[in-house]
């Protein structure tokens, strides 16, 4: 998992509440055998004017010019600004995979759905929860200024706006630790590698038949 300590990037505004995981990545893309490559289908229904299906050549699809990700001013955005209850719906881990594959590193919203919250952190996405009023104000600022960028400082738990305003946010220590160090569940378990090796050696010694292959 990619480490996260501080990130500065252009903000893309997604002005809707209750964005569900089906909107983030529609179900027809779940048949994939991969966890990468979902970025081109992120927000598929909003982004394109036709119906998406797996394996399509997306370069040929008609874009919806009104959708913000298709507007020149938000190209290269890596911070998504959204409304409340972002990520509700199914538990698909494809949602954070798609957001990340697209290039988002941070999502800012007044609240997030539970399972999505978990899944996102497992995959190295930082979710920043800010007050509803603050988020509303950020939407106005983003709209008013082309190239509007935020500076997200995880270590100090703050977001710094272009005018120098500091917005503090809460995050639990464990998740913060994992993100700062790039530790996913596997990474955390591997911190116990010596204990696993020691156990394995004892186990092999006392029950060698469990380690035997077919003859």
């Amino acid at each position, binding site marked *: *998992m990619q480490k996260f300590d501080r990130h500065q990037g252009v903000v893309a505004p997604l002005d809707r509440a209750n964005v569900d995981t089906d909107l983030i990545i529609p179900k027809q893309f779940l*048949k994939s*055998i*991969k*966890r*990468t490559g979902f970025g081109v289908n992120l927000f598929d229904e909003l982004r394109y004017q036709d119906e998406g299906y797996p394996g399509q050549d997306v370069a040929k699809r008609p874009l919806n010019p009104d959708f913000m990700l298709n507007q020149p001013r938000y190209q290269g955005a890596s911070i998504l600004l959204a409304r409340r209850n972002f990520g509700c719906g199914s538990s698909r*881990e494809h949602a954070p995979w798609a957001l990340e594959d697209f290039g988002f590193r941070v999502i800012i919203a007044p609240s997030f759905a539970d399972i999505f919250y978990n899944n996102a952190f*497992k995959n190295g996405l930082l979710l920043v929860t800010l007050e509803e009023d603050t988020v509303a104000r950020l939407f106005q600022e983003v709209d008013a200024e082309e190239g509007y960028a935020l500076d997200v400082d995880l270590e100090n738990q703050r977001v710094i706006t272009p005018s120098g305003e500091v917005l503090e946010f809460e995050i639990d220590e464990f998740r913060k630790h994992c993100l700062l160090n790039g530790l*996913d*569940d*596997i990474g955390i*378990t*591997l911190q*116990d590698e010596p*204990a*696993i090796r020691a*156990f*394995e050696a004892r*186990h092999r010694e006392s*029950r*060698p*038949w*469990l*380690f*035997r*292959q*077919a*003859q």
Partner: protein
Amino acid sequence: MSGQTLYDKLWSQHLVKERGDGTALIYIDRQLLHEVTSPQAFEGLRLAGRRPWRLDANLATPDHNVPTTLKERAEGNTGIKDPVSLIQVQTLDDNCDSFGIEEFRINDARQGIVHVVGPEQGATLPGMTVVCGDSHTATHGAFAALAHGIGTSEVEHVLATQCLLAQKMKNMQVRVEGRLGAGVTAKDIVLAIIGRIGTAGGTGYAIEFAGSAIRDLSMEGRMTVCNMAIEAGARVGLIGVDDTTIDYLRERPFAPQGELWDAAVTEWRNLVSDDDAAFDKVVTIDAADIEPQVSWGTSPEMVANVSGEVPDPASARDETVKHSYSRALEYMGLSPKQKITDIKLDKVFIGSCTNSRIEDLREAARVAKGKKVAASIQLAMVVPGSGLVKRQAEAEGLDRIFIEAGFEWREPGCSMCLAMNADKLGAGEHCASTSNRNFEGRQGYGGRTHLVSPAMAAAAAIAGHFVDVRQFAANDDTQVQEA
């Protein structure tokens, strides 16, 4: 201090570390892999630049997506017509190749449903922890192995660390005492248990099946019982070691040999619950009370005796049950108080990880021998659980019995259990199925599944509707081999 349950013993033998937050790291001895739940796990490894921790702990085989007709199978992977299925199977092959994991490929005689293949190879041994990205991994508990179904991110976690993050479960014992009546099988035991405790009855528990009726079962029968622990809500089903377990494993390819075998057997003998072990919950069932079972609804707890009838929602104990019964009857196209034996069938499926082992096929063949599938049945198919089961059945002449009776004799795989390949039910069709789930749409959109034992399925195929197999058991002939 009271003694330990089998589950407690297996847990403590694999405990690497308690993490202080209620979870623990447990060491995994065996991981079985199939094509549906492994691709993203392998990709995750690749993206993170990780290698599998211990290659020889893993064994893979494609099963969910493989076609089951001889013609398609003769073409190997190219016989898979659905492009998505094909990609999944090819990806498993590629991943096993590039990471160096042993795989029984589509045309290997040892290929089959993972839960049939593992035990058949002796790759599942007593005292092991076994995981697979599939909920029916509970099957392997029949060997006193602690076996869990896991999700794809856990598959990756086990590949990378050889450990699983787990929470200790509570202990439940289901005792089935006494002798089963003739024509009543392991499948009827487990359906009756689920009917009794409900599909959530085992939630949070590891269920140990015990009692004389369980001891009397063959390993195949025990696997059928443990397989459906998950339908009773329990991720783990277990049965203690005895001679039956040990006899089954002797000389299996992955089982130890020589002195190592002797040492293993000595240790395996301890893999039973201590006499004074305390269980959080005990359920006792009298084997003599169990009749052949038929599920009438859309949940495995909706079962009835073959001599019984479909329930009347009007007499349900509360509103919730009433509602779920009404909805199930509507989906299943059945009426209240309809006799089970009046349910007419369109298709019959004998197979799945619950009932596709040699003994299951023998039971079905015994019933089908010398008879004909009813003209009203559109399709009756027998799908062996593995290439080796198929070979054995053919050596015993079971294939001929089935074919002569009008059954289709197929190649091994999951097949119509979940309809991921071309084997499916049409909308509204009733199917007598030896599989484990009768959820809406499980065997095809709008399909109506009735869970039964292999003998009951074969009898239903011949009659065209459900019948009490005990009427068929009259010409019981254990010498089917010489057919």
